[in-house]
């Protein structure tokens, strides 16, 4: 029985370092290759030794697919391809291919240049790695090899995020990456067709959350920013350079415009302008509204938002600063945070999820004293707000996607175990499908039951469909008969006669003849007619003919009558049938032996 296996090397009952292995129809595919923000040691990257203990990655993997540019989905890619060693194809969408190397380089700089780590991938390695990337277009069916095909669907989440449908023969798996089922200010909603995969592997970041309406959250966010500004405080919004940042910029830009506010808004690092350029060039990946109006007004040209300089952090008066990275684990956002943390007038708004171990995660859990490097501690006095703006599907969204794709099995990854458990129960209850939540390194196996594709001869098919009539009767299904010829890799279903012909075989006729004696005091033709009437009444639904040459035919069985030489009342019936009518022939001979009922005329 064919099987599909799913093994998370990362993101199994966890968020971070997404990396899922799928074995389907003899092919091995790696889905995402991310890093974990919460660790600085080996646990930062997925455990590739799971594969390499048995040989090279390139020999094992048929392809690697990256769902989007977030580092927890692509951060380990140069490490995997250049340091562990993988030379096969890597697939990602155009925007991901464009943006991913920039974020990788950023990440590398922070890790190597600032933290001074060695044994890390180099700029050259990022470049070499990107040379192995083949861009994917939405809905394009890419033939990885003769058997393996992949197709990308729009996932919302961030610019260029995609879900992938992986298919080998009639078996298939869908991997969602991160997705969002509600359109936001700059992106559309994820969509997939009813592709009925054997397994749907879904993220489950917000497995237990059902988020209130986006409008409310936006109002809330604007209110908090506005209040802080009014009382002269500074607002720090740690973000990733691409994605949520653009959505919040659009939000603040329109708010500033409407309220005629003067406080400056800054965006840290030189990436801003560049980031906005990407949004302009890849406008076809944004939502309907932005795409429709882009010729008149490009939403990514901001009037109120200016580039940030390190010295501005000490300026007096209110300001809003977007700074990277989003989880306060390094870089400029952390520096600014340290500067502003001591003043209760200030505020930090965390607009997205923070993985365990990051400062973002700590302060969100109410920690007010932070241990910093070099034994220093930092008192957190500023207000800490959490606003879920990260574009993940909530529980409702995940259920909605299941309804869209109609999978036969469900696998949850990219979430916390406790929350997954809850969602798993809900899914199993609502859809009556099996739902799995493997931990890292744990393999789940799903047996599939694919139907076998066969080439049927058109003659046979047409004959069958004609016999079946335009409206087949579901209660009385017609049985069709044919011969399946298996030759090399081809399976052909033809009529038995055609099979004989195609195989160059002669037909062997097997016939039976049987004499039955019968007491019937009538003339021969009368007896024959009595037999005809009798059979007519017994055999419903068969073709029975009384032929002028003195025979009765039931289907292709011939019945003849002659009188016995000794006694004219004793009739001898001669039944003759071919092997094809064996069942009927046998039945008739037994039936007629019992004689004819007296009531016949």
């Amino acid at each position, binding site marked *: 029985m064919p099987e599909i296996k799913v093994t998370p090397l990362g993101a199994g009952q966890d968020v971070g370092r997404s990396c899922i292995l799928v074995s389907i129809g003899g092919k091995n595919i790696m889905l995402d290759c991310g890093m974990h923000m919460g660790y600085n040691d080996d646990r930062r990257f997925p455990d590739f030794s799971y594969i390499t203990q048995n040989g090279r990655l390139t020999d094992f993997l048929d392809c690697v697919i990256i769902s989007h540019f977030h580092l927890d989905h692509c951060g380990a890619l140069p490490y995997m391809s250049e340091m562990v060693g993988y030379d096969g194809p890597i697939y990602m969408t155009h925007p991901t291919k464009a943006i991913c190397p920039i974020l990788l380089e950023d990440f590398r700089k922070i890790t190597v240049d600032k933290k001074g780590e060695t044994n890390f991938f180099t700029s050259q390695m990022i470049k070499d790695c990107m040379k192995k990337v083949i861009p994917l277009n939405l809905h394009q069916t890419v033939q990885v090899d003769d058997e393996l095909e992949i197709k990308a669907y729009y996932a919302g989440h961030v610019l260029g995020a995609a879900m992938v449908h992986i298919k080998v023969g009639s078996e298939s798996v869908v991997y969602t990456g991160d997705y969002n089922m509600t359109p936001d200010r700059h992106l559309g909603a994820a969509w997939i067709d009813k592709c009925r995969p054997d397994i749907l592997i879904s993220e489950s970041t917000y497995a237990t959350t059902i988020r209130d309406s986006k409008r409310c959250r936006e109002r809330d966010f604007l209110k908090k920013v506005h209040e802080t500004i009014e009382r002269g405080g500074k607002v720090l919004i740690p973000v990733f350079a691409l994605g949520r940042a653009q959505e919040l910029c659009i939000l603040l830009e329109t708010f500033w415009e409407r309220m005629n506010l003067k406080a400056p808004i800054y965006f840290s690092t030189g990436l801003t302008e560049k980031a906005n350029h990407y949004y302009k060039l890849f406008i076809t990946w944004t939502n309907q509204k932005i795409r429709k109006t882009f010729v008149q007004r490009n939403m990514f040209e901001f009037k109120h938002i200016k580039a940030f300089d390190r010295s501005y952090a000490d300026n007096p008066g209110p300001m809003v600063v977007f700074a990277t990275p989003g989880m306060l684990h390094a870089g400029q956002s952390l520096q600014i945070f340290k500067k502003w943390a001591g003043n209760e007038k200030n505020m930090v708004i965390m607009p997205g999820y923070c993985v365990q171990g990051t400062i973002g995660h700590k302060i969100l859990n109410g920690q007010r004293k932070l241990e910093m490097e070099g034994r220093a501690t930092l008192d957190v006095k500023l207000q800490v707000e959490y606003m879920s703006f990260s574009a993940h599907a909530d529980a409702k969204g995940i259920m909605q996607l299941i309804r869209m794709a109609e999978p036969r099995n469900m696998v949850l990854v990219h979430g916390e175990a406790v929350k997954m458990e809850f969602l798993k129960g809900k899914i199993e209850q609502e859809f009556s499908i099996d739902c799995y939540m493997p931990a890292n390194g744990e393999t789940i196996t799903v047996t599939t039951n694919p139907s076998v594709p066969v080439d049927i001869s058109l003659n046979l098919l047409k004959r069958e469909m004609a016999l079946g009539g335009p409206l087949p009767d579901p209660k009385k299904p017609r049985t069709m008969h044919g011969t399946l010829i298996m030759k090399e890799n081809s399976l052909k279903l033809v009529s038995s006669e055609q099979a004989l012909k195609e195989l160059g075989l002669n037909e062997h006729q097997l016939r039976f003849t049987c004499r039955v004696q019968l007491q019937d005091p009538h003339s021969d033709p009368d007896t024959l007619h009595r037999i005809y009437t009798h059979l007519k009444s017994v055999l419903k639904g068969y073709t029975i003919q009384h032929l002028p040459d003195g025979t009765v035919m039931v289907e292709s069985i011939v019945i003849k009558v002659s009188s016995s030489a000794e006694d004219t009342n004793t009739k001898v019936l001669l039944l003759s049938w071919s092997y094809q009518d*064996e069942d009927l022939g046998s039945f008739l001979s037994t039936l007629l032996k019992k004689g004819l009922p007296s009531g016949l005329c």
Partner: protein
Amino acid sequence: MKLYCLSGHPTLPCNVLKFKSTTIMLDCGLDTTSVLNFLPLPLVHSPRLSKLPGWVSKDGTVNLEKELKECAGRVFVDSQPEFCLPERELLDLSTIDVILISNYHCMMALPYITEHTGFTGTVYATEPTLQIGRLLMEELVNFMERVPKAQSATCWKNKEIQRMLPGPLKDAVDVWTWKRCYSMQEVNSALSKVQLVGYSQKVELFGAVQISPLSSGYSLGSSNWIIQSHHEKVSYVSGSSLLTTHPQPMDQSSLKNSDVLILTGLTQMPTANPDGMLGEFCSNLAMTIRAGGNVLVPCYSSGVIYDLLECLYQFIESASLGTTPFYFISPVANSSLEFSQIFAEWLCHNKQTKVYLPEPPFPHAELIQTNKLKHYPSIHGDFSSEFRQPCVVFTGHPSLRFGDVVHFMELWGKSSLNTIIFTEPDFSYLDALAPYQPLAMKCVYCPIDTRLNFHQVSKLLKEVQPVHVVCPEQYTQPPLTQSHRSDLMLELQPPPMPYRRCSVLNLPFRRRYERVYILPELANSLVPSEIKPGISVATVSAVLHSKDNKHTLQSVPKPPPAPPTKKRKRVMEEPPVVLAPKPLLSGAVPLEAFLATLQKHGITEVKVEETADGHILHLQAEDTLIQLEEDGTHIVCDNNEPLRTTLRDLVLRFLQKL
């Protein structure tokens, strides 16, 4: 399988393919060459045009002064220009299931087909094709509606009168079916029926056939189409290019193994080399500007213009044209330039790489930023105040019958300092210029047509090896004007099947197989037996389910247990339910082995008698005869059913079942 040909124009095709219960329209080209018979529509009142003399037949019997005007020996219709539509009587257009569009030039007749014909299907096109196609339609409507013409000339179409008109009006065909331009409302309605597709996307049509667009390398989002079932493949090649310009390169390998390849949209200028033409374009442009003249480039607002601007971007500095203003005037100029920058996925590799940087893929962004290129929706408004000469103007329409170009013809036509450079290959430049004669302005003809030429297409066909090729009849003979050039036609073995407007071709292939799926339960119950080395057979008895053109075979459901009958005896008399007929048999029963088997089963008294075709076995104790022959066995057995079935099974042991 049939092909209905609704257009005779080889580069603006419109064919309908009937294939496996689906009706598929391939492209929807609008033949606009008909507008050359009309007078230009000036944007501002033109005393010259309004003073043209009306036409009266030589003998004075026919007077159509109001409808027809004479200019430099040619006669033009003074009316809103009309287009020659695809044939609409050859088949019922409401039966069309889908329309596949290959590029934005081949969809201009769409509103005529999807509106007012009862069409209820879907149109498939790529995103750039839809967006740019929309712009071109919008532009066309705008050109027409901007200068409404009250008069609609119809008298000249009268058969008796048309016969008496001078050429080329006399020879115009189907003039009664010519139609005015559609409205924006009709355009919007037509385009709302478009479903977007990406290259290599597989789309199922009613479960019967699968369609898939392939990159054709001709323009942004241009595609060829594969229409296939599990056993048959039709390729539709339309407007393809192997030159490296801005679009993604042509996907050739996916065209392999086609049963039928429909070939349209080859170059209209088989003898003009696009690169040479581009060079000539630049040098003529520079020469005119240096001499203080203006350059007029009549063109479409998308397509080759992107390449022209890119070429000029590199050329401007070296030709010291840095201060010359370049104007692009069209109601959709801005949109066209903006849209060209956002289709990274559909561009050639070099341009994609630029987007990754991130930089705009086309350098015209820089030309606009540095104010070298300016674009305006029309000659009215800002343009009139900012306009400086000498300059270069890109504007439409290339037919010179409507659009802003008409104004520049009137403005610049009288001076020999100015030059008009034709780059679009769709219209004969002499015909285009006819209503402006006499003309002092210089005319340069550098048609740039990047579509496949005959040399390239023969190479392509050799590579992809289609079984049959179908093409417009124009491709099966050399061009009329160059009848000695046998290299300017398709020479294939077997020869291509030519079509013309209104042809109906029976495409020569027989379908023999269809895909059916055997459900796992049934598949597991099959018992294969090896008939010959490497060949196994299994008899299949199954229930066929056909839904949405998908066929599956299921196990025959077990009959529900017979309801318990009171009279036991009756049960015996129930005839057998329609059971599986027995399989066919093959092989022969060998005498010796059979006798040995009989013996094993206790049948020992056998008298064997040789006959002409085999043997007769007389089982004496049982009074039964078995006739054994090469291709048949006959068992004659009376009144002993158990014996008969035993004998049957023994015989069957020696035979193969199919």
